[in-house]
């Protein structure tokens, strides 16, 4: 746990900015800094990325303080290299432009980067929050209009919360079988 609320806010903002780099979304309010606003529609943050990362079951929770510090360190170094002055009122990574965040995260996730594994973990869970709402029951997430499931157009279940697709086939033969198909239906 971060020692105080200011630290906690700093961590949350930094992780939000990371998740927003993975699946970007629209700002929650005009003065939203963590979400860069690089995309219309909601992204990973609104989809629950921070909730998922902070779920003990995910196994990353103990790393989040450290990753936040390291990420902000990389952001400061990047800004220095580029000669950019960062807004000092917010965490350095949050202060980067969306394109700079994307390039930095791209470097961290690239094969060969010594910290790659940790960043991949963060990216996977950010993605998963958007694609599957893994911190919620899927039926509830759909009912609540979860942005990721809505974006995929994930079909709703039957009334009992289970999925069935009575219509599933064109019921047409589309191609010839391979000439060496055996009686068991296998390749010869």
């Amino acid at each position, binding site marked *: 746990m971060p020692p105080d609320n200011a630290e906690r806010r700093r961590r949350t903002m930094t992780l939000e900015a990371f998740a927003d780099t993975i699946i970007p979304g629209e700002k929650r309010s005009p003065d939203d800094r963590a979400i860069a606003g690089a995309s219309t529609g909601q992204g990973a943050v609104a989809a629950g990325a921070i909730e998922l990362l902070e779920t003990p079951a995910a*196994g990353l929770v103990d790393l989040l303080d450290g990753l936040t510090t390291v990420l902000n360190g990389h952001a400061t170094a990047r800004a220095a290299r580029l000669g950019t002055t960062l807004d000092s009122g917010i965490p350095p990574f949050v202060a980067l432009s969306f394109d700079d965040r994307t390039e930095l995260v791209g470097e961290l996730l690239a094969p060969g980067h010594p910290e790659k594994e940790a960043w991949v973990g963060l990216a996977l869970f950010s993605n998963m929050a958007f694609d*599957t*709402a893994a911190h919620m029951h899927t039926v509830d997430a759909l009912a609540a209009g979860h942005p990721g499931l809505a974006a995929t157009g*994930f079909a709703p279940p039957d009334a009992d919360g289970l999925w069935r697709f009575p219509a*599933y086939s064109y019921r*047409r033969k589309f191609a010839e079988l391979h000439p060496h198909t055996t009686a068991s239906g*296998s390749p010869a």
Partner: protein
Amino acid sequence: MNSTESTDVLVIGTGFGGAVAAYHLAAGGAKVVMLERGPWVRSEEFEHDFLLGSSYTRIFDFVVGDGMSLLGGNCVGGGSVVYFAAMPRAPKFVFDRQGSIGRRMWPSSISRDTLEPWYDRVSEALPVSMSDWNQVTYAGGLFAAACNHSGRTANPVPVAIDVDRCTNCNWMMSGCRFDAKRSLLLNYLPAAVACGAEIRPLHEVQRLSRTDRGYRVHYSTVDAEDYRILHDEGVIDAKIVIMAAGAGATPVILQRSAAALGGMPDAVGRYFSGNGERLNTAIVDEDRARELFGLDRGDGRAYEANQIGKGPCVASWDDLDASLPEYSRFSLEQLYFPPGFGTILAQVPGAAAPSWFGREKKEIVGKWQSWLTTFTMSEDDNEGVFGPPPPTGNAHRISQQMLGRGTISYEPTANTRHGWEISDAAVKAVMERDGLAKVMPWTNDVVGAYTVHPLASCRIGDDPATSALDDRHELRGHPGIFVTDGSAVPGALTVNPALTIAALAERAMPGIVQAAKDRGVSVKYGAPSPLGEIAGRRGTLPLVSDLAVR
């Protein structure tokens, strides 16, 4: 005598290799105990839910290694509970492969022809049937139409699915709620239990040691919810040990046992194959799909059906041509991965960097209903090697369930990469023809290559230098330890492996039963199929005496 628990046969793992062995030995009269690290989940507990902690994560194991990630089952029934039930037999040429050793890598006693009766036995037991076009899903139909349009043939794949029960929900990877998928929970395992075998879920085997009459199996019990937590430790003594923890776990248990057992064959934990797997995502242009093939779901939509169905339905076998050189043969199969597994590694066709995350990735996820995934199984080079074993299990567990960091390293050779490249090109040629779709392979940059078909980490063979097991699946230098899971398969199969794994396990049984008899166990070989059919047994009976003698 002390009070240590003992049994005739101890089976480690309850997937294909373990279930086949437990059934035959228990049916023959041996006392059988099975230890399984995962939970025992009943049909009604198989959820349609992506929530962490639902069956979607409870029954899975995803191990990230260096250059290769392995996805497998983690429950009673093993991979059969999470699998897609595509059950083709391996083509003839596979058994003549030379792979990385420059001479035939399969034992001389095994060919497609000699394995055929054993394939029949498993096909009768599950059962496996040929599917027809009426059962092929929209995605399978579209893939078949695209194959045909590019001058290819296409086959509905044989499956172990009861199509009358199947609701085409496409939650197969969470276990089948409707008992339509013929997993081992519906045949070999209940039959084994009916014959007296005992299954203990949430028991993870850590290592083996020796006793004067056989082997001692050391296990820990696993917390039912948080698999990172291990509770009690225990041991069971057995005259025969059957290792069937899967190709990602069996070699690790043996590595950890090496100090106590001594003299592990060099091939334990080497020659791992990912079955040459590769995935491509096509984003289909709905209008072109309609114009080119007249596709119509009856409600104005041409396709938009990625979510609907039952895993792989159609395969393309045109590149399974025995006359082609090794490393250039592969099959293509249409399949479905749910979001999460199936979205994260997909790349944006034609993207400027980044290709698998960011703005453009979000845009293609928005077209998810129009995705069509193809799966390549090619001939890789058996280049995977397991490093020193972790303290417990086969990986360092990160998440409460599912995710772990393993010790495998896999650096694809030029041969393997060649297979991937030509199959990628084939998928592109089929799916992009006349503007049908835009295609990109999944990225290997994130978690390396990936396989749902781990094989060959402890393989059978005639040459002791390159095979850990003899052709009866006995671990070299350790009489009474047998390996019957995917780790015994010598190399990539160019098709889905479960039927071959199970057929090899069936074939190994007369020899294992004989080995048990030799150790004083009162056991007979010759059980019918788990549901009582005897046609398959009739076919294999003439082969039994040869397999039972040494």
